[in-house]
Every structure is written in C-alpha cells, then in structure tokens.
C-alpha cells in the first residue's frame, strides 16, 4: 500500500498557479492569497421531499465532503484580452446553455464563467499598471526580460555567459536529493585510521582518510548509496561529473580528446576504419559520450573515404571530415552522390562510387543491445520483502526519473536507471529575476535589483497603487436583516432571499476619485441572480496622510454639534472619531426617499453607506437564484464545480484629476496652453471586475 502512495516530488521550476479547468467552470485559485482553493462539490441535494426533478447524481455528489470556507474575492479583468483580433461572436455551445462567450464590446456584459475569461481575470495583487498608457497590465501581457540568473540554494549569481556554456543548472556544490528532492549537504566522513598504517612512514601521504559525501537531512539518503565519495568539499559538480556510480572515474570529453591525440601521434594511422575490429570485444560497454564520439569520428571518416579522397585519407579526414553536413563543400559532395548523371560533377568523384558502411565495433561506436534483463528481474525478485517495503518501491518513480539529468558517463542502452539505488543527485535549476515591460509603450513596469539577496525593486508600478481596492463583507444589521434559516450550511447564502453586501472601495492615489459602477441586472450563467447596486456613483477621498486627517478632526470637533445631522454623500467632512460618516444614521428631518421612520439604520438608495479618510463603502443587494433546476429551465446536467458561487461582473469606471505632466523642454508651455485649474487634466480608467460574494445554499 505504501508503495502505491508515491506522491510526485516537487519538480524544480514548476509554477504552482492553477488555471481553472475550462470544462468544469470552477473558480480560479491563486496561491498565496486568502481565498480558498476550489473545493469539492457539496453534497447532493436530491431531497426526497422535493417534488421537482432530481438532479442527476455525479460522482462528486456521492462524497459528502465538507466545504472549504468561502472567502469573498475580487478579480479584475485585464484589458489585454480586448485586443484579440480573433474575437468572434460564437455562442458557447457547452452545457452551460444560455451563457455566451464573453465579448469585449461595451454592448455585451462580461461573463466570468466563459472559457475565455478564465485567462484574463486576476486578483489585484497580480496586476501592474503602466503609468504612460494608464492601463492595467496583467502577467499575461507584460513582456519579461531577465535581469540576472542565480542559484536558489547558494544564491550565487551566475553571469549569463556561463548560462550559454555550462547550462542552466548550478555548477558549484548545490544538489537535490534524488529521492525526496530536498537539499543535499556536504558532510565530512572520517574513516577510522588503519592501525597498521599509523606507524608506517607513508601515513602522511595517505589521502582519502577523510572524504566528503552528500547527504539528505530529510530522507537520510547519502551518496554512499551509489558509492560516490568526494575528495574536496567544494566544486562537487565537477567531481561528480567524473565519477560513475560505484566510484569509478570516467574521462571527460577533454581528456578523451587529449588521449586520442596522443594515440594519433603515436600510432600514425589516420582515422581509417580498417582497424582490426575483429580483435575487439564486441561487448564492451561504452558510455554515452564515448559512444557518440566514436560514432561521430567513424562517420566522418566514412564520408571522407566515400568521396574519393581515400589515398590522402589522413589529411582529408582532418581537413574535410570535420566540416559537418552544413558546409557547402560537403553538401555538394553529398548531392553529387545522387545526381550521378549530371555532367557538372567531378569525374574523379564519379569514378569512386563511394560506399559507406556501418560501424562494426565498439571503437567505431557500435553497441549491441542486450535484451537479457535477467539481472534486473532477479534484483526485483530477490528483494527482501520488509514490511512496508516491496520491490515496487525500490524502483524509481516517473517523477524521480524525469528529474534525473542524462548522465554522460552511463551507457545509453544499459545504463538506464531503474532502481532508486542508482539515482544520482540532481543539480539545482537556476532561477531568474525578471523585469517587466509594458507591451505597448515599452516602459519598464517592474524592475528588481540585480543584487540577488535584496528583494527590493528599483521600479515597481503595481495596480494596487492606482486602482481602488474592493473588499466585500456581508451586511447584517441586528434589527433589520431577517435571521437566516436554521440549518443553513456555514458560509453560504440563502437563495431567493435578498442579501446585502458592503463593498468597501479604498483609494490609493492622492487625488479624490469619482467611481461609477454598473452591473447587469441579473448575473450571467445558468442560475441568474438579481443584483442591485444601491449607490452606483460616488466619490472616494484622496489618500492623504493620517496626520492631515487628525488635524482636520480637531477642527471639526469644535463644531461637532452642527455636523451631527449632516448626511451628504459627497464632499469630505470629518466628523466623529475616525472621520466616518454613515448615511443611514439618525436623520430625523430629511425626506430621504423611501426611508421609514423606524428604519433609519438601513441602507439607502443613492446614498453611500460609510465613508472614511480614503475609503467609501456602498451596499449592493442580491437575490440569489435557486440552484434547484425545474423542468422549465433549460439547464441540463448537474451543478458543475463552483457554479453555485455567486459571481457578479461589475464594470468600474474611475475618474480623477491628475497633474498635467510638465513639458520638460519648455516648462512654461503647459500654463501657456491655457489649462484651467492650474494644470490639471481629467483622467479616467474603466475595467471589468468580478466579485465573488459567496456560495448559494442548495436548499429550496
């Protein structure tokens, strides 16, 4: 049982963001944020007391899983998806039926459950803002450039020239355990000194009395399990490349070249293939690098031989054999083999029709495949079945094998690792620090410091500094809101009953903004809920300093008696502690529309709910749809994952006045242009966002 529980080890470099599955329409989940991941579907609601058609039972319904607590969320849609040239008005023909694919014109409302909107919705923390274009930029539309490469383990910055030559892994001493992907530490192993040798005069020269190994502190793996020990504690990557499993050394490419040069200078026989291959043992195992090098030199010799320069074979192979297959000379030779009848080619090359043969010996690169795997099979069968461990768990899992780098010292045919006992340590993948650019105006949006250990940014334009933050909370007034039904599952909204939510907009910029909201009257999807914004247009004060507000308070409290009954919804008027003002509180005299005498505390249409230094709260009212499908409804199929979440698409338009940018060349130009209000210009920004309010209970 335990052998089957093989969980995938963390794969270095794999991101953790999950885009929702488009077929099920579940909610997006972003790591690191407070919103809960998509939870399993709640229990089936085939209530026998229900005289309507029961829903078809899905496998998810059979498991009575408790629902994860729901946190209201706000996702903002990046306008980059509007510039899609392939925008077509294709209705969504999935079982969602009535909903259409979201189109980006102003005529059509935004459907958060459409397949396309999946890729454009982001929480505010993920978005940046381009100051030149005054537009939101999402991670999908920014252009990224790499600032520096570094190893996540040793935090050593690797210059980009090394990336090209040595690859994208750390070449120092950073390794990951092949079993559990944890970091490996270099440990000193003291071998006990041989008592016989202590007195010998050679003792001082005996090295390897202490050596170093790599060991994992989590799963207790160490490199002694593959028989590898190191002489020095640093530059382990280099030492590891030269060691095979079991401690034998292998030659690297450079060393092999040197040896071949020595042999060539001694032997004198130039690269011809007529070595006495009959004497060689056909079963010698070559490692990957050696086999490739042998094959390559063999084929180069064959090429040069086949093209009529056999006499001067030695020089030819040296001069022309190394040209490769792209050079024009070798190309023309190859083509001449095929165009035998053309009169343009060389007569000399025609006289020798040039035969090429295959390799015949390991020295030429031949490796015979041994199909006999009895050794591996007996290793599996002889495995002592210790309780909890079986032969299956001694084999390496797919993830473990995939993380292994191809080892050039292993034979490609027979050296494939199958058992966990032959897995080698994995080098750390290098990570990058990246800077982001706006795709349109090429301005830098975010630029981290190139020093690896600092986490600061040189430039950081995030949307949170420009766009109001929206937080959602359910509004429950003790005397006013009807109590929920008794057996309501936690964190759910009752269907078919009006529920009120307070949306708090917090303004990050230093100007006061006017916000206009719009939503469709009913939410898109199979279960349309009615939405009403009680105050679609309001102002938020600027994000001034806290001290300014406190000073204003002191001035205001001196005249507090006058400000007690004011209830204007616009204009900053500090009164009371914290500068809050609630529109619905005690207003005995004013005729505020439908306000009843006994309900002064309820939210009012057209009035702000609460206001603060840099924030404003308004109330929206929703009447959730019932999730039970009747025969009249068009919807088919069971409730998909997260289809019961009440999501409201909302169009937000923000207007504010900003300082007109000073013309650097002629400082006086802006005023000379005759701008009124001392150089301010009106700016506006509009975007769609999606508010996830809560899950609708599956009652009724």
């Amino acid at each position, binding site marked *: 049982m335990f052998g089957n*529980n093989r969980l995938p080890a963390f794969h270095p470099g794999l991101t953790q963001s999950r885009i929702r599955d488009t077929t099920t329409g579940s909610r997006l989940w972003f790591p690191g944020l407070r919103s809960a991941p998509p939870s399993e579907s709640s229990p089936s609601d085939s209530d026998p007391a229900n005289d309507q058609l029961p829903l078809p039972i899905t496998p998810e319904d059979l498991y009575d899983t408790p629902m994860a607590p729901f946190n209201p969320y706000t996702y903002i849609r990046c306008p980059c998806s509007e510039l899609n040239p392939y925008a077509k008005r294709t209705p969504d023909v999935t079982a969602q039926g009535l909903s259409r694919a979201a189109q980006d014109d102003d005529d059509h409302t935004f459907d958060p459950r459409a397949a396309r909107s999946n890729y454009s919705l982001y929480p505010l923390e993920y978005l940046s803002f381009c100051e030149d274009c005054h537009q939101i930029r999402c991670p999908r539309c920014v252009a990224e450039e790499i600032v520096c490469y570094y190893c996540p383990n040793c935090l050593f910055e690797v210059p980009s020239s090394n990336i090209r030559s040595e690859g994208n892994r750390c070449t120092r001493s950073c390794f990951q355990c092949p079993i559990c992907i944890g970091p490996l530490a270099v440990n000193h192993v003291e071998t006990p000194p041989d008592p016989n040798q202590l007195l010998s005069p050679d003792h001082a020269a005996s090295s390897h009395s202490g050596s170093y190994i790599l*060991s994992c502190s989590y799963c207790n*793996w160490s490199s002694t399990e593959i028989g590898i020990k190191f002489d020095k504690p640093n530059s382990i990557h280099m030492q590891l490349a030269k060691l095979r499993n079991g401690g034998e050394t292998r030659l690297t490419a450079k060393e092999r070249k040197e040896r071949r040069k020595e042999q060539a200078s001694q032997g004198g026989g130039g690269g011809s293939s007529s070595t006495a291959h009959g004497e060689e043992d056909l079963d010698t195992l070559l490692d990957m690098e050696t086999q490739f090098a042998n094959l390559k030199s063999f084929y180069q010799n064959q090429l040069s031989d086949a093209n009529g320069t056999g006499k001067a074979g030695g020089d030819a192979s040296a001069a022309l054999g190394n040209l490769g297959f792209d050079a024009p000379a070798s190309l023309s030779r190859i083509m001449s083999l095929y165009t035998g009848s053309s009169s343009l080619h060389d007569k000399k090359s025609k006289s020798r029709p040039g035969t090429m043969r295959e390799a015949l010996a390991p020295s030429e690169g031949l490796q015979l495949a041994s199909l006999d795997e009895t050794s591996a099979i007996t290793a599996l069968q002889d495995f002592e079945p210790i309780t*909890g*461990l079986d032969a299956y768990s001694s084999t390496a899992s797919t993830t473990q094998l995939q993380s292994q780098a191809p080892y050039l010292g292993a034979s490609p045919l027979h050296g494939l690792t199958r058992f966990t006992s032959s897995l080698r340590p994995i080098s750390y993948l290098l990570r990058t620090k990246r800077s982001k650019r706006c795709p349109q105006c090429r301005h830098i949006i975010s630029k981290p410091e190139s020093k690896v250990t600092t986490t600061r940014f040189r430039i950081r334009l995030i949307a949170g500094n420009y766009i109001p933050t929206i937080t959602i909370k359910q509004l429950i007034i003790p005397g006013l809101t009807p109590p929920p039904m008794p057996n309501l599952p936690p964190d759910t909204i009752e269907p078919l009953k009006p529920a009120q939510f307070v949306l708090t907009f917090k303004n990050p910029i230093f100007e006061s903004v006017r916000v206009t909201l719009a939503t469709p009257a009913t939410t898109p999807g199979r279960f349309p809920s009615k939405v009403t914004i009680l105050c679609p247009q309001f102002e938020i004060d600027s994000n001034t300093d806290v001290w300014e507000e406190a000073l204003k308070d002191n001035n205001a409290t001196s005249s507090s008696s006058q400000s007690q009954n004011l209830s204007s919804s616009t204009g900053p008027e500090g009164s009371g502690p914290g500068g809050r003002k609630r529109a619905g509180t005690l207003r005995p005299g004013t005729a505020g529309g439908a306000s009843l005498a006994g309900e002064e505390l309820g939210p009012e249409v057209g009035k702000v709910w609460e206001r603060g230094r840099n924030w404003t709260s308004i109330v929206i009212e929703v009447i959730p749809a019932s999730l039970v499908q009747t025969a009249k409804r068009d919807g088919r199929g069971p409730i998909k994952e997260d289809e019961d979440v009440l999501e409201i698409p909302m169009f937000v338009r923000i207007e504010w006045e900003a300082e007109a940018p000073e013309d650097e060349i002629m400082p006086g130009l802006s005023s000379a242009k005759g701008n009124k209000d001392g150089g301010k210009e009106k700016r506006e920004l509009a975007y769609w966002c999606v508010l996830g309010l809560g899950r609708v209970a599956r009652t009724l």
Partner: protein
Amino acid sequence: MSSATPSPGPSSSSAHGHHKRHSILPAVSQSGPKPPVQFSSSCTIADSALLTGAHTIIVSTESVIHPRARLESLGGRVTVGRRCIVHERACLGAADLQGRYHKGSPDKEGRSMGAVTLGDYVTVEVGAQVESGGTVIGEGTTVGIGTRVGAGAVVGKHCTLTANSTVAAGEAIPDYTVIYSNGLRRVDRRGVSDLKNKAQARQIDVLRRMIPSNPAKFQ
C-alpha cells in the same frame, strides 16, 4: 498542585544584570494521580514535566525529560531507556484520537507489556505523541516533531520518523527504516548509528547543564 517557577539556572548575569525572564506561559499544574517512579540518579527531569498515571514510570541512566513533556502511565508502565531525550510537549503513553488509553496485549510469557517502552538513545521530538498500549520504540530511533505513533506499534532500531508522520496502531516497522513524505518508506543505509549515539551523548551533556532537574518532586 501548581509548580513553582524554575530556579535560576547557571548564572548568565555577567552580561545582563537583570533577572532571568520567567516564562509567559501559564504555570503548569499537575493533575491526575501521582505515579510511582523509578528514576536513575543521573537522569534529568525538568521541574515542569508532567507525570501522571497509576503505573510506574521508569527513567533510566542519563535520560533527559524536557519541561512540559508528558509521561502518562494510565494505560500501563512507561519505561524510558538510557540516554533518551524527550522534548517539550511530547507525550509518552498518550490516548488515541478517540481518547482511549489502550492497555496492550500481554506478551508471550503472559506479562503485560507496558504502555510505552523506549529503547536506549531514543529521541522523541517536540509534540510527538506515542500512544499507550504496548508501544515499543527501538534503540536509537528518532520520533520526529509532531509524529503520532499508534497504540501497540513496534518501531525498530535506528529508525527515523520524520516530522508529522504517523505510524498506524499495531504496525511493526523494521530496523533502519525512514518514514518520510506522506507515508513513504525507505531503508537508511548510512551506517551512522554509532555517530548518532555519540552525538546524542554530547547533546545530553549540554542539556543536563541547561535544564534544572528536580526528580525529588515526583518521588
């Protein structure tokens, strides 16, 4: 009876002239029956350790029981071997998740297995729960942080149970096993048992100087 605040340890007032800071956690109160104990003379029992139960609790040579560790002998005798370390909030002889204290089936000769038996050189880390009921932890094993060892489980020698792992009730873990990840197992082939024992002895030396021992309180 509530425990007194620990007496000031070896004075470190050379650098600071103020008093040693007292713990802000609430005072530990011993509840439950006071168990009969057999302490070795060289063992270290912290003052705020919690020993409860009806059966004997045996702590052998040079073992260390940290403050606020619990040793419950409600289900049977608790035996701690030589040179063991039981860290804070660990519980030997804990009840299972339903709250029952298992008694443990008697062994071949008909004697009752104690609730919990720890071999020599065992380390029980912070917050580990070793359930009662004939549970045996072999010599040199490290029971990781937050691990739960089920009732009646027999863990072999020199095993490593990594943090937050669980051993099912009644399970037998062979020697030199490492339980890691989400229940995965492998065999530890490092051969460092001697080194670990030596390191444990050195750690116990340090702990004996740092933890003020008060075995008389429990006898």
